[in-house]
């Protein structure tokens, strides 16, 4: 869900909508008075918390979590399923490989910024191999040659240099993040836009900006296609905590390496 890219810009509208949505609160009237539950948290105060993540923005986050569920259900997933239905599987894999290959650029400069030599070389090797032998990135031959994909982003770079994660935040559409990873997302997106402007791949083509918008849309669809997680799919009532915890943990592990 947290795959960045120029997509971020396209979702200002949704953010505005989400902000509106988060304003509603249901009021309850005419209910019989509450009675205390048989078991309360006070009983278990002598034990440490489990799956605990500091979450000062939980009210906002839970609303965004719900918003994302609806955005997925009514907009994003139908589009992704449509894409999966009309596109042959090998072509879907080609598209994923293509965008993952472009992602190696991000991994490359972030690994470099983290002073991780092997990772930098790995990203470079993957990009060069897949762009050439892999025909412009459509095939991931590098993995078969023993160069595993190890994505890095600017959020991880900040983490490596000791910046704390900051509060957990669920972004509209993009999902679980932290203040740090959100900053990273903005920086990586900025870098991406700057690079695109410098290279201007569609500059000499008629309707270049339309093509660019199409590519951006495809990238977004592919990112969601690659992401198996679905909000509330587990039906587990405490899914929010699980996801929050696993996200944070996974980021911490990613930063360690």
């Amino acid at each position: 869900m947290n795959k960045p890219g120029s997509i971020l810009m396209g979702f200002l509208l949704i953010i505005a909508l989400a902000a509106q949505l988060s304003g509603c609160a249901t009021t309850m009237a005419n209910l019989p008075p509450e009675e205390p539950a048989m078991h309360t948290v006070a009983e278990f105060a002598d034990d440490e918390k489990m799956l605990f993540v500091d979450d000062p923005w939980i009210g906002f986050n839970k609303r965004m979590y719900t918003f994302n569920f609806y955005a997925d259900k009514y907009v994003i997933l139908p589009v992704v399923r449509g894409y999966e239905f009309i596109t042959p599987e090998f072509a879907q894999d080609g598209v994923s490989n293509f965008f993952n290959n472009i992602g190696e650029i991000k991994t490359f400069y972030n690994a470099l910024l983290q002073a991780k030599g092997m990772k930098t070389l790995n990203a470079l090797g993957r990009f060069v191999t897949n762009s050439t032998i892999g025909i412009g990135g459509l095939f991931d031959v590098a993995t078969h040659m023993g160069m595993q994909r190890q994505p890095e982003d600017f959020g991880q770079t900040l983490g490596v240099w000791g910046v704390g994660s900051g509060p957990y935040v669920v972004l509209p559409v993009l999902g679980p993040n932290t203040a740090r990873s959100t900053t990273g997302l903005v920086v990586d997106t900025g870098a991406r836009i700057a690079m695109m402007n410098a290279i201007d791949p569609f500059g000499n083509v008629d309707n270049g900006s339309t093509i660019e918008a199409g590519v951006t849309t495809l990238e977004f669809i592919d990112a969601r296609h690659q992401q198996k997680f679905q909000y509330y799919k587990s039906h587990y009532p405490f899914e929010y905590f699980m996801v929050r915890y696993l996200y944070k943990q996974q980021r911490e592990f990613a930063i360690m390496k």
Partner: protein
Amino acid sequence: MTHIFALLVTLLLVLPAAGQAAGEGSYGYPIPGSYAATIMGTPEQLRIEKPKNLSMKELVLDVYPERKKPDLFFYDDGLVCNFAYQKKKAPLAFLIAGTGSDHNSDKLQYMTYGLYKAGYHVITLSSPTHSNFIVSASKECVPGDLTADAADLYKVMEKAWETVKDDIEVSDFFLAGYSLGGTQAAYVAKLDDERKTFNFRKVVMVNPAVNLYESVQRIEALLDGIPGGPRKLGVFFNRMLDKFTEFYKAGDFIDINNQFLYAVYKAGLVSEDEAGGIIALSFRIGSAGMIFTSDVMTNSGYVVPKNRVLQASDSLADYFRVSVRLSYLDYFEEYFLPYMQKKRPGLTREQLKAELSLKHIEGYLKGNPKFAAMLNENDFIIDDADRAYLKQLFGERSKVYPRGGHLGNLEYRQNMVDMVDFLTILEDKGGAK
């Protein structure tokens, strides 16, 4: 849930390098330790493979269209099932998940692969202890009573069949379940003998519990082995995580994947007691969902204050903290038993315990050629007396594997072949007996 569970267990994964005893007989499942097998399952290269041509879709069954679901469960549109279908006339197998697991659990997926390859249509069902089932398909929303749960399952199967019967051709009906789902399958089959909607030809129970209360007791007892006992669940979890993090940091791992798990296993990072604790903990995480969901559905005031209406944006943190620290035994004593006694005045505790057992329907099961059971010699949710009982109950239609723990060898290729054999080939043999 499956994936979150898988991830969680993955994160926790730590295993004792139990005594080396593999290789006896011709059974090739490699992990000797009971807890290790339970946590690790089957190594990837030995698992049954996904069929290449698998046609599968989700069914969402609106079992109680009039039910007004609590706002908190706004995302619940009905009971979700997987439906794998053949393009020709074929037998249809219903599969029931184990405690806390849903229709998409790994174990059900592997069973689907095995049956699909053998030419079956398959419909997978979440456990009646799973939140989706409690909210959408449970009549009374208080899981645990084998008879009532079987009636709920049966209603769901009828609904599912109603939904798909115009799309597929079915020759015969079959039923299988694992763990609690195996025990429930026996009760469902018994009900089917009365109602005769399906006339199940064969029923396979994989690692079933004999008596639910006793199995739960055995699983809960695993927490006695952790420092401070069950009261220090949080401390245990955090300590495991620290240990695990250290190991990850120190090693040369790229990802949290099977390779990493195997390394943890080989390193013998965690004691036998701790491995048992992890199993019980993941069980508790499942039961927390069941307890909380049932309480919200019935407004019983067990962990949520009575008459409190929860919204999607409310934090459930405190409810999680409480629910995960209540055991199935607490649930039985404080919630389930009083509920059953209200329903059936005069019912005693011992009576109820005895009813939650295969022995309760022994007369129906004994020598019944319809049934087969797959057991493991070192499955810890039953004891040797239970194993002997099941062997005596099903005779040659029971098979005991030398290892596999609880469900660890379910996805092992040989086991899936045997399961399909039980359903098909043994048919004549069983009938002759």
